[in-house]
């Protein structure tokens, strides 16, 4: 027995080595295990603590959603699309920009959760759920826009393929119908994918709560008892979904990009739009994960145990890589379009960089390329959460500017100079866009006190498979392959 073996002379760990192991534990959540029940209690506590400040935010945001989003939207429905600033030739404005933005944000959850799960990136464990929630709520905010931007929203269901008295189907050649189908598929599959890993945590919460919470968790836990057979099936289901949702994720933003790429608009007709949009979506999504992790860490109880500097560090590296990939696609798209020599495309590209709205284009380049490249190579910056918060916010500002450049600024300068036009967003449009931001934060706030934001079982599973092993005189973290 290993415990019986006496240490031979001289193998006594020096204080230096001990502190090294201590440092490793402090650094890595996976090497810093905690008794299971204590951890469960920590998560339960984080979930059930509601401060006065939290209530103030919830009420404030709820009011903001009611006024900014539903109030303004209702006013627009009652009055007409004209209360938005769009005009000929810019028929799509802030609404579609924000739509693409939210669909982009929603890619984070799947990317972080499914791809990192498939590749067994261990640092993902504590924040997969925070990211998956972003997917669901980002889609909830984004999926409103195909309705908001309709001239006659009260007949939106004509886009749905359903058997009707007129025997009319939607036009399956239209990219908007593809969009509709892709987004509903993604919403459905990502919600299931959010729910599956939630089941054991729901059971955990069920066993540690009473009253209405107990009742709801009991329903949502689906009678989970934690038997071997249940775990086997759950792992299988999660694994199937993790693989299956990746192509769905890729398809969604590709199809969103096809809304533009299949058109005749010069500057949109680009065969690289699919991957370009996907990379942009992942860049903005992963950045948003960091933004949210920072907020969770600084506002929720016990979160600094789960979310550590190592996570900001790892995600920072990912953002740097995706910023580089984004820049590659951007310049590839830009330079080849320019080289193509089409007069109208050239005109569009020139006006992006020199026209009256060129500041949007420069904002995009500074926030998406310059800032990540200048700062994120630095480990110190990556490990400073508040700096990461600012950088990731700026990346998303840049991604918003990218979509703004692609949509209204490109539409405004088409082939015929007589039809050129500048688009000015109105207060109603901006209010609706802000309203969906409030809706996103509102839903997130509610969810943070309702479901365990940290997938406890995944963290515990990870901690069980990680150990510090002694090799010679040093301690080396090692991972056991679980599946």
């Amino acid at each position, binding site marked *: 027995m290993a415990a019986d073996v006496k240490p031979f002379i001289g193998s006594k760990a020096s204080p230096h080595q001990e502190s090294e192991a201590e440092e490793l534990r402090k650094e890595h959540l996976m090497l810093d295990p905690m008794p299971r029940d204590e951890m469960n209690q920590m998560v339960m506590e984080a979930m059930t603590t509601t401060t006065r400040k939290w209530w103030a935010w919830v009420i404030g945001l709820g009011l903001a959603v009611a006024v900014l989003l539903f109030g303004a939207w209702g006013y627009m429905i009652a009055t007409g699309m004209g209360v938005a600033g769009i005009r*000929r030739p810019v028929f799509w404005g802030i609404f579609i920009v924000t739509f693409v933005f939210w669909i982009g944000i929603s890619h984070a959850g799947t990317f972080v959760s499914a791809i990192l799960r498939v590749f067994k990136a261990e640092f993902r464990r504590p924040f997969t759920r925070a990211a998956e929630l972003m997917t669901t709520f980002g889609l909830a905010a984004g999926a409103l826009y195909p309705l908001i931007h309709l*001239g*006659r929203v009260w007949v939106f269901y004509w886009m749905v393929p359903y058997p009707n008295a007129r025997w009319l189907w939607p036009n399956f050649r239209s990219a908007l119908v593809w969009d509709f189908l892709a987004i509903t598929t993604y919403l459905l599959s990502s919600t299931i994918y959010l729910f599956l890993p939630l089941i054991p945590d729901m059971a955990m919460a069920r066993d540690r709560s009473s009253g209405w919470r107990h009742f709801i968790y009991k329903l949502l836990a689906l009678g989970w008892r934690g038997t071997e057979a249940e775990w086997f099936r759950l792992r299988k289901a999660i694994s199937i979904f993790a693989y299956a949702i990746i192509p769905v994720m890729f398809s969604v933003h590709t199809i969103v990009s096809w809304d533009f790429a299949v058109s005749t608009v010069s500057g949109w007709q680009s065969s690289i739009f699919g991957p370009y949009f996907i990379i942009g979506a992942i860049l903005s999504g992963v950045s948003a994960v960091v933004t949210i992790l920072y907020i969770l860490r600084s506002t929720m109880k016990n979160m600094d145990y789960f979310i550590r500097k190592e996570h900001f560090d790892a995600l920072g590296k990912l953002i740097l890589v995706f910023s580089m990939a984004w820049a590659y696609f951007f310049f590839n798209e830009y330079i080849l379009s320019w080289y193509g020599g089409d007069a109208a495309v050239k005109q569009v590209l020139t006006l992006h960089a020199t026209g009256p709205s060129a500041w949007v284009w420069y904002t995009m380049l500074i926030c998406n390329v310059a800032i990540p490249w200048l700062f994120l190579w630095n480990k110190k910056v990556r490990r400073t959460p508040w700096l990461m918060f600012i950088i990731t916010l700026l990346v998303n500002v840049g991604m918003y500017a990218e979509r703004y450049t692609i949509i209204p600024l490109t539409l405004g300068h088409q082939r015929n100079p007589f039809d050129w036009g500048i688009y000015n967003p109105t207060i109603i449009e901006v209010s609706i866009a802000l309203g969906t931001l409030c809706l996103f934060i509102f839903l997130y706030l509610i969810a943070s006190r309702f479901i365990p934001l940290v997938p406890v079982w995944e963290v515990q599973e990870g901690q069980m498979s990680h150990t510090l092993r002694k090799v010679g005189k040093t301690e080396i973290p090692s991972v056991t392959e679980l599946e």
Partner: protein
Amino acid sequence: MTELLAKEAHDEKWGMVIDLDICSGCQACVTACSMENNIPFVGEDEMAYGRGMQWMRIRRYWEGEYPEVTPDYQPMLCQQCGSAPCEPVCPVFATLHSEVEKINLQVYNRCIGTRYCANNCPYHARTFNWFDYEIPAPMNSYLNPDVTVRRRGVMEKCTFCVQRIVKGRQQASAEGREIEDGDITPACAQACPTDAITFGNLSDPESRVSKMVRSDRAYKELENLGTEPRVTYLKGGKSYGG
């Protein structure tokens, strides 16, 4: 074979020829179109912001440097493309090709207002009902009973005065004959003081439009996009003036 050709000649494929060399840019066509098709007036501010509802617009260009400038006019309307970019993008089939007249139809009560068609139209020929526009008295007495009025949130555009095409066909059939060249005149062609707009059947090789389309001066707008426009412009260079 001759039978087939004869049948072809009686098929309808409506087209228009606009002679830019004699167009004076007077906007009579714009006015006539607005009256014929119940197009609302949006007011000065909205018009200046680019929300005019005209189905036909005069694009005006200046050539040369001030003060030595010559104006250049081009009436722009829906080109009734044979391969129209607006059609495949509509999710609900609100814009589609008519099998008889071979023109693009806009089904107002099917339209849900995605405005995708308008973005995708390289001619910017489509106009959107941003609001419910009131047609104040006594102008409402001018409303054309043959043309439906549109509500807010739907797209609209030039129809080649499809109501006149239908009327002409009915007239001819009542008289027991085929439609003849010149039977049908859209409002813009009727109002043009210089007779710059000619309308007719392109599948009849002897019609006036078919002859004019074969002119050396003929060109089609943005034909390189493969839209197969049914509107042909005639332009012979600067010597013709205007």
